[in-house]
Structure formats: C-alpha cells, structure tokens
C-alpha cells in the first residue's frame, strides 16, 4: 500500500489545456497514473494527450468516474476550481498552484475539510506513490519504489532529497509534498499519522523549513505517537530574518519558527536531523 494515492485514483486535471497541465498530464501518465479527464471551462470536446476535456468537473465525475483532482489553475481561479471539485464529489484535491491569496485558502481549505475532502497543497509539488501513481510535478526519474515515506514543505528540495534517497537505495512508499504556504490542506502531523499507520512504510523523512510551527508540532507528535524511525532536514538556518509577522505573529509562534527551535524539537523527539540535504540518505542508513 501507499498513503493518499494508489492505483484506484482516477485523476481529473483541472487546467489541463495550459502549458503546465499538458506537460504534466503526459508525465503523470508515464508514471502509470490513470488520468481520465481534463477540465478547462469552454474547452469541452477537445483532447489533450488523448484525455477528454470537459467544461465542468461534474462531467468528469459523471462520464469518466474521476475521483481525484489535480489543479494547475492560475492563482486567481484556484479557489473557484477547488470548490467546484469538492462540490462535484472529488475526495482528493491536489493543488500545485502557487501564490493563492491566503484569504482564499482560509475560505476553501476549512470548507474542504468540513466536507471530508483531503487537500494537498497549495504551492506544492504534489504526491507520488512509485508503482501506483503520481499527482504532481516531481520528475518521474528520481523515484524508486520502496518503504520510506517522505513529507515535505518544499518543492525542489524534495527532488533533491528523494533523488539522493533513491541513489542510496531508499525507495519511497509515498512522497507527499504538503506545500510551503502558511495555510495548507494537509499538515505534517496529518501526513505523519498516515505514514505511521501505513504498513508499507517502515521509516519517514521530513523536510521542513523555517517559519510557522509545523515542525515543532510534528516533533511533539512523533514523541507521542510515531514508532517508526524519522529523519529530518530543516532549510533556512542562515536565511535572513524574514518578515516577522508583527507582535501578533510572535504570540502565535510563541518563540518557535526558527531553524534552531525546529532542529531542537526534532532532536528532543529522537529524530535525526541532517545538516545537508544529501545527508538524509546517510542518516537513513544509520537509522
């Protein structure tokens, strides 16, 4: 098994007629994913890479039994597209789109969750379960089937780490790019919960970044609930002190959010933390 994405997924690509939608439709199929439909309003009847295009997600669900959606829709239309997918009965929505206004996410992400829909992203590289399928943009060639679960807030850094893992013989059960935005559909703790339960996953890699408290919350959860070995990497030790979100932000973060705080939280939870991305694979070998 894998988490979130298996062979059962019948994927509709929202924004399939754009350059990215088209390119990645091909790549996802090459990875073995069942891409059954595309949606671009006004483009019904055309075909992209042999995939029928519809005006509405509902049509893709009715005619092609789509049950998962991936969004390559420009940021101003992403909320509309996501809500359309939710209302059409899609239960897994992967949002690649970056730069979606936070207030749009405050609207549709809690709504999706209230409807029992899993959202991955936004601003993420998507999910890939080698041997099962891929809903995302990570290059196919870097993956290898295996039993390590990967959870990452970053995009290309995920490529980097997955590549090094595969080279070192650590294949992946599933790689989940949860995204780098402040508000995400699935957080680290939720992804950890899935991997802890998954029988095919024997160990977990976490790729974090500075900002927010996701890593600290993950560390706390690992201490209490995760029995599988975890290796982490945190980017941004030397990043310039970015925009501090005022005093109100400081209250929410309560002294957390820095690379030191995250690294320490992981270490306290028994998680090995790599200094360089390439070191993740080495630490896995020792775990």
């Amino acid at each position, binding site marked *: 098994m894998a988490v979130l994405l298996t062979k059962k997924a019948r994927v509709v690509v929202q924004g399939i007629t754009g350059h*990215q939608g088209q390119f990645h439709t091909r790549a996802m199929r090459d990875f073995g994913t069942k891409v059954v439909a595309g949606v671009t309003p006004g483009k019904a009847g055309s075909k992209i890479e042999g995939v029928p295009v519809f005006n509405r997600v509902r049509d893709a669900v009715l005619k092609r039994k789509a049950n998962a959606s991936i969004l390559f829709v420009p*940021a*101003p239309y992403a909320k509309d597209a996501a809500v359309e997918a939710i209302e059409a009965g899609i239960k897994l929505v992967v949002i690649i789109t*970056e*730069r*979606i*206004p*936070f*207030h749009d*996410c*405050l609207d549709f*992400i*809690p*709504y999706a*969750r*209230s409807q029992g829909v899993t959202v991955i992203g936004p601003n993420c*590289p998507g999910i890939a379960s080698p041997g099962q399928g891929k809903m995302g*943009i*990570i*290059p196919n060639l*870097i993956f290898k089937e295996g039993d390590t679960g990967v959870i990452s*807030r*970053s*995009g*290309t*850094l*995920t*490529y*980097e780490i997955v*590549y090094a893992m595969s080279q070192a013989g650590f294949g992946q059960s599933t790689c989940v790019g949860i995204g*780098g935005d*402040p*508000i995400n559909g699935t*957080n680290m703790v939720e992804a950890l919960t899935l991997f802890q339960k998954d029988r095919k996953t024997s160990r977990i890699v976490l*790729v974090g*970044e*500075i900002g*927010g*408290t*996701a890593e600290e*919350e993950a560390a706390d959860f690992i201490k209490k609930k995760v029995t599988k070995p975890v290796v982490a*990497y945190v*980017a*941004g*030790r*030397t*990043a*310039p002190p970015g*925009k501090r*979100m*005022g*005093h*109100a*932000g*400081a*209250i*929410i973060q309560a002294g957390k959010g820095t690379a030191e705080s995250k690294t320490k939280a992981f270490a306290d939870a028994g998680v090995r933390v790599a200094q*360089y*991305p*390439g070191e993740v694979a080495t630490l896995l070998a020792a775990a």
Partner: protein
Amino acid sequence: MKFLEHKAKEIFARYGIPVPRGVLASRPEDIVDPPLPCMVKAQVLVGGRGKAGGIRPAETLDEARRVAGQILGMDIHGYRVKQVYLEERLNIAKELYLGLAIDRSAREPLLMATAMGGMDVEDVPREELFMEHVPAMVGLQPYVVRSLQASLSLDKEIGDQVAAIARHAYDLFRKEDAELVEINPLVVTGDGRVVAGDAKLVIDDNAEYRHPEYTNLDQDRTPLEQEAHEKGIVFIQLDGDIGVIANGAGLTMATLDALNLKGGRGGVFLDLGGTDDPEKVKQAFELLIKAHPSVILVNIFGGITKADTVATGVKQALDEMQATIPVVARIKGVNEAAAKEILRSIGSRAAETIEEAAELAVKLKTGGV
C-alpha cells in the same frame, strides 16, 4: 506588503476605525498647519520607533518643524526616515490592544485583545490576553465580540466603541486580504473616545492583484531588489559576497545554509521558482551580476525549470555583460547533460552535490583553487 502608519490609518479610517487627525511631511518647510499640540512620528516600516527617538511631542508650529527636521533623515534600525506624520496629541486615559492575524495551525484568523495595551503584546501575561479564533467560513459572530468586550472590563459606552472597532477591523482584515491588523495602543481618551493610536497593517503579497492601488507603495527594497520585484523575480540582497542562484525557496535556503557551513556567506540570492523562460533567467542573472558577487553558485534541480534553460540564460547574461565572475554549477534533473555542456563551455566549475558546490565556491572566493 507592509504599510506605513499614515497609510494604514488612511485605510483604517475608510473602514470606520477612528484615527487621530494628522498631516504628512517629507520636509520641515512643508509643515503649515499641523494639529497642535502634536506628536511628530517617524514613518518607517519597522517597530520600536518610539524607543529609538522617532516619536516626539511639539507644542507650536516652529517646534513641530524643528522636531520634524531632527527626525527626518534619522536611521531607525537600518531604515532611513523619509517622512514624518504630525498627529493630534491624544489625551490618553487608557491604552488597549486589538489585533488580528492568521493562525496557520488552526487555519483560521485569530482575534486578540487586551486591556494592557501600549506594551509589546508578547509580554502581556496570557491570562490578560483575549484570544478567539474566527472561522472565516462563518465570519465574526456577535458572541465573540461580546466576550471580547466583557474581557476588557470597560464602561458600556467605551466598550461599545471597542466592539464596533473590532467589527470594522475584521471587515478590513478580510476585504483587504490582510495578514496582520494591529492597533497598539488603541487609545481611550479622557473625553471618552476610542481612537487608533498606532496602526500596523500587512497585506498578503499574493493578493496584490486584487488591490492594484497598493502596488507602488515603498517597501524599503534596495534599488536592485526593487528592479527585481518589478520584473517579478525573487531577489534578496544579503550581507555576504557569494551570489546564489537556485530554483525553489527550499533549495535556495539549503544552498545558503551549505555555504554557511563551509565558511562562506551568501551575498544575494535569486530564486528562479518555477520559471522556464530563458529571457527571465537572463534578466535574473543580470541583476545578480550587478550586485558584484565574488563567486556565483548555480544550483538547479531541473523540473518545471529545465536545467538547460537556466544554463542558456546564465551564458547569455555573462556574454552580454562581459562579466568574468567565476561560476560554480551544480546541476541535476531535467536536461542535466545539455546544461552541463553549456556551462562547461563558459568555464564554470562543476560539482556533484550541494556540499561540494558550496566548498568549491568558498575556495574560489578565497583564491584557493
């Protein structure tokens, strides 16, 4: 987008939040009719102005001009004061605090208030702090405002004004795509008015397209950063001397971290993000060269951004600008071989891993290779 106090107050006023009368000036001689007696307040995008001497009283027009002359041009935590705001001096009876921010973990806005305003709110004891999440789906419900009001133990007339301000602030927070709305102090005056003494406002950059009226606000960028921003390029100047060009925020940060671990420092970094436009890469690289780095480290993991697109842009920019800055390149992913070939042709040094690339860059800089 951050907002200077006077601009934030202008927006507050539009939403019905009472603000003191004030006038803006960038030269003492421009000050003609300030509301006297007044406070002369430095307009900078950084906190701690008061402690740094950037907020001072004035009784008369002459004094206002003199004080303004002293504050203008001051350096406050690295920010040069270009404007002062001369504001009606409030007769302060009590200082409150009101704030709205996004709580990432809860995925909801968080409303905060305390009767202990005027100080750093993170120093306010938790039990003195009213905090309530507001689910964006349903909005600010009256019971939340009632409990906020009750928590502050104010007279009814004052409390009602605070309640109205909380509703207006939430309205502003949502409609203006704010990440942060903060009023500290929220002043209760001797004559029973409630007025925003200060105003902090940060608006989500992602929503800039919905608020075109804010696009030209001064964000205290360096000239190169400003040029990059206008071209839609993520470009940040740091205090080191090694130029870093990478794709994706995480990989860029990881590269800076690796440089640091090897004893070097990033001087400027460029995040190419998910672009695959050779022209944009070239523009980005030109900006990087203009920052005069001693070495350039290119770290690309090709995906959406094809590695050879980046290599081509780098080559073109170096050729056109006739620059002779040493380049260390670490290329992986889509079209890796083609990219390596292009970079070899311009004499760049190749590295296999991020660590190797960082080490090589630091050595080149110190003339060790």
